[in-house]
C-alpha cells in the first residue's frame, strides 16, 4: 500500500488548500463590493446613525483581515454569524435546511446511481442497438431540458392531473419517514432524471473504452464466456471510471438541487440561497456558497481518491 497513501494524502491536502482559497474568494468577493456595505444594505435614505450602528454590528470597523480570520474560524466551528435580514443566527437557519437538502440529494442518488450504472453498462454492451439508440436519445432530451421544465412537467402530470403526489414538497421537522419520502418523490425524480442521463452517458463511454482494451479481446480468445468477461475482466477495471463518474455526478447533483428546491418550494439550502440573493443577505449567501463549494470539492476529492484506490497499478506498486 506504500505507493497509495502519499498520493491520497497529497490529494487530500490539495482539497483542503482549494477549500481555503475558495473561502478567500467567497469572503473577498463581498469585500470587493464598491462603496459601503452598510450603506448599500440600508439604502441611500438611511441616516448616518443607523449606518454607523450597522457598521458596528457587522464589525466593518475592524480591518478586513481580522474579519476574514474571525469569519473563517467561526465557519470552521459552524458559526456563520448573523443574518442581515432577520438577525437570526445563520447556522440555526441553515442546519435544518441542510439536512433536508442532503435528504433530497440522497434520495435522488439512491434512484439514479444504480439505474445509471445499469443502463450505462447495458447500452455499452449492446451499443448501436435499438435499445442503445432510444436510451441515448431519451437521455439527450433529459440533459437538454432545464430542471424547472422537467419539474413542472412532473407536477402537471403527477400532481395536477393524476394527483398521485403533492405539487409542493413542504416537509417539516417532525414528519415521519414515509411521509417525507412521499413528499420528496417528485423533486427527487426530477433531479434523478437529469443526473441519471449524465451518469449513464459517462458510464457508457467509460465501459466502451474499456471493452476495446486488448485484454478483453485476449479473454475472449481464451474462451472465456461473455458473462465472465464482463464480471471478471471488465468490471474490476471499470471500478475506477465508474467511481469517478458517480462522484462527479453527485457533485453536479448538489448544484441541480437549487432549481428543483425552488420549483417544489422545498425547504432546503438552495431555496434559502436564492431568497438571500434576492434580499442581498450577504452572511447567508456566503455561508450557503461555502457549504455548496465544500460539498462539491469533497465529491471531486472522492472521485480522485476513488480512482487512485481502485487502480491496481497503484495498489500493487513494483
Amino acid at each position, binding site marked *: 500500500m506504500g505507493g497509495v497513501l502519499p498520493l491520497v494524502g497529497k490529494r487530500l491536502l490539495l482539497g483542503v488548500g482549494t477549500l481555503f482559497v475558495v473561502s478567500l474568494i467567497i469572503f473577498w468577493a463581498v469585500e470587493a463590493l464598491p462603496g459601503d456595505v452598510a450603506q448599500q444594505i440600508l439604502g441611500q435614505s438611511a441616516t448616518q446613525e443607523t449606518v454607523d450602528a450597522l457598521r458596528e454590528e457587522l464589525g466593518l470597523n475592524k480591518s478586513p483581515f481580522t474579519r476574514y480570520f474571525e469569519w473563517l474560524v467561526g465557519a470552521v466551528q459552524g458559526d456563520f454569524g448573523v443574518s442581515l435580514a432577520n438577525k437570526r443566527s445563520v447556522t440555526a437557519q441553515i442546519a435544518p435546511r441542510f439536512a433536508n437538502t442532503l435528504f433530497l440529494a440522497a434520495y435522488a442518488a439512491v434512484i439514479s446511481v444504480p439505474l445509471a450504472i445499469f443502463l450505462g453498462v447495458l447500452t455499452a454492451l449492446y451499443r448501436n442497438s435499438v435499445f442503445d439508440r432510444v436510451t441515448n436519445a431519451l437521455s439527450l432530451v433529459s440533459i437538454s431540458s432545464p430542471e424547472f421544465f422537467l419539474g413542472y412537467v412532473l407536477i402537471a402530470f403527477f400532481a395536477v392531473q393524476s394527483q398521485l403526489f403533492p405539487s409542493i414538497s413542504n416537509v417539516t421537522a417532525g414528519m415521519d419517514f414515509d411521509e417525507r419520502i412521499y413528499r420528496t418523490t417528485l423533486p427527487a425524480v426530477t433531479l434523478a432524471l437529469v443526473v441519471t442521463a449524465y451518469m449513464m452517458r459517462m458510464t457508457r463511454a467509460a465501459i466502451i473504452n474499456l471493452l476495446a*482494451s*486488448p*485484454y478483453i*479481446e*485476449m*479473454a*475472449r*480468445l*481464451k*474462451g*472465456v*464466456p461473455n458473462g*465472465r468477461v464482463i464480471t471478471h*475482466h471488465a468490471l*474490476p*477495471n471499470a471500478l475506477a471510471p465508474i467511481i469517478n463518474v458517480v462522484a462527479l455526478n453527485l457533485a453536479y447533483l448538489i448544484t441541480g438541487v437549487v432549481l428543483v428546491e425552488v420549483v417544489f418550494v422545498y425547504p432546503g439550502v438552495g431555496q434559502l440561497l436564492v431568497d438571500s440573493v434576492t434580499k442581498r443577505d450577504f452572511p447567508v449567501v456566503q455561508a450557503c456558497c461555502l457549504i455548496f463549494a465544500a460539498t462539491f470539492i469533497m465529491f471531486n476529492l472522492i472521485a480522485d481518491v476513488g480512482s487512485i484506490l481502485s487502480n*491496481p*497499478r497503484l495498489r*500493487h506498486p*513494483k
Partner: protein
Amino acid sequence: MVKEKSVLLEIKDLRIEGYSDEEWIEIVHGVNLTLHRGEVMGLIGESGAGKSTIGLAAMGFTRDGCRISGGSVLFDGMDLTTASRAERRALRGSRIAYVAQSAAASFNPAHKLIEQHTESGRLHKISSKSEMEADAIELYRRLRLPNPEEIGFRYPHQVSGGQLQRAMTAMAMSCRPDLIIFDEPTTALDVTTQIEVLAAIRDIVEQFNTAALYITHDLAVVAQMADRIKVLLKGDEVEEAETRKMLADPEEDYTKSLWSVRSFEREQKPPPPASEKPLISVRNVDASYGPVPVLKGVSFDIYRGQTVAVVGESGSGKSTTARCITGLLPPDAGEILYDGHVLPARYQNRSKEQLRQVQMIYQMADTALNPKKTIGEIIGRPLQFYGGLRGAELKTAIDQLLDQIELEPSLYYKRLPSELSGGQKQRVGIARALAAGPTFIICDEVTSALDQLVAEGILRLLDRLQKELDLAYMFITHDLATVRAISDVVVVMKEGEVVEQGPKDVMFKPPHHEYTDLLLSSVPEMDPDWLTHLLEERGVDNVGEAAHDKKT
C-alpha cells in the same frame, strides 16, 4: 522430431469484410491455408496485408467492424465459420491459443499472472487449480523466466516486457493446445530481448509439438521460426513454400522485391583528411530530464558529406542527443560546435542562420506534417521564411524540390498530407528539410515506420541527395541493416553513454566492445539456421536480457 502429417487447420477461400464509411469492403480476398499438426507456418506481409485478421479468423474470431463473408475455416474437421458460439468458445484457449503483440496491454491489470494463466484450464475443466499452478511454474521454468516459483504471483505491471511476452506464451501453452497463433509477439521488443523470446517460443513449440501460425512483418524472424512461409499482399496470397526454398528461390516478383530490400548498401566513404574541421561536434554532453540523467559525457564528430549512424536500444539516449544538438534540450554540461563555433544551448537563442543549417526529418511522417496545410505550403514555408521567396519564384523553387524528391509537382502541390502514402509523406518531410538549404540533417528513425520496400526507396533518395548536395547526416536508428546500408561512421550508445564508435567497416568486424557484440549478434539474419547456430555458439544463457544483465 517426428511431425504427424494429418491436417490440423484448413482455411478455404476465406473472405473477410471490414465496415468503413457506412459500407462493407472486402479486406481478405479468398485466402487458402493448410497447416499440419506440429507444423509452424509463417504469415508474412506488410501492414494492411490482412495477416492478423486471418490469424484471428483461424480461431473463428473477428474484431468489431469485421465479418467473415465467405469460405470456411476447418479446424480438426469442424468448420469454425458455421460452428455455434459455445463450440467455438470450447476450442479457444484449450485447443487453439493466441499470443498477442503487446503482452503489457493484453494481460488484465487487475489480476495476477498465474490467475490469468490458469483461467482457461479451469473454465474448460481440464484440471484442478493447484495442478494448473504447478504446471504454470513448470512452464515458466521451461521458458527460462527468472524466479519461476514466484513470478506468477505478480501483477502484469510488475514484470518487464520481454518476460511478460514469455509469460503469455506460457499461458497459451497452459492447456497444451494443438495450435497457437503468434501475432507479432516480438515486434514491440528491443533486439536483445527479442532473441530470447524467439528462442523460448521456438523451443517450447518444438517440445510440445504444437502447430503454430507465426504472424510477422520481419523476414529474418520468420526465417528462424517457420517451417513454411506464406506471403500476403493486401488480403491476397502471393505465394507459399517451404522456408528454405522460399528464401533461396522465391517465384513471384513481389516476394523477390521483399527479399532484395536488404541488398542496398553503399560503400563507406573515405575518412575526411585530418586537417578538415568537423561540421558538427558534440563534446562531453551531459543532459537530463528533470532530475533523471539521460546523457553522460557524449562526444562524437560529424564531417561534411558523411553519415554518422547512432545506434542503440530504446532508452539509450539517441533521440536525446538529437534534441541537444537542435537546442530543444539544453545540455547540463558540454557543448555543441557547428563548423568550429559553439552553438547557443537553446534554440531560442540561435540565429536564423544557425537554425537553418540544422534540419530534422522525423520518424512518424503523420505527425511531422501539419494535416491542414497543402504540400506546397509545407515545403514553401522554409523557402519563404529563410529565403524570402514570393510568388512565381517561390512556386518554381517548390516545384524544383518536389522534382528532387521524385513527386510530380502538378499532382502533389495542392494535396493535403492525408492524401499521401506513408512513403510520400516521408519524402515531403525530406523536402521541407531541404527547403531550408541546410548542411546537416538529423534523420530520426526515418525508415522504421515504413514498409521495407518503401524504406529502401527513402534510403536511396537520401543517399542521392547527400551526393548531390554534400549533406552531413546523423542517422538515428535501432536497425542495423539501415546502418549497414547508409553509414560511414557508427556510434553505439547504451544507457546515455557512447559505448564504442568508429568507421562502419571496422565496427562491423570483430573484435567488438561487449555490448556492440551483443547488439550485433542479436539482430536476426535471413539464414534459417542463424538462431540455432547462435544458441549453439553462445548457450541460451548468453543471449538477450540474461547476457545484458551479466555485462552491466
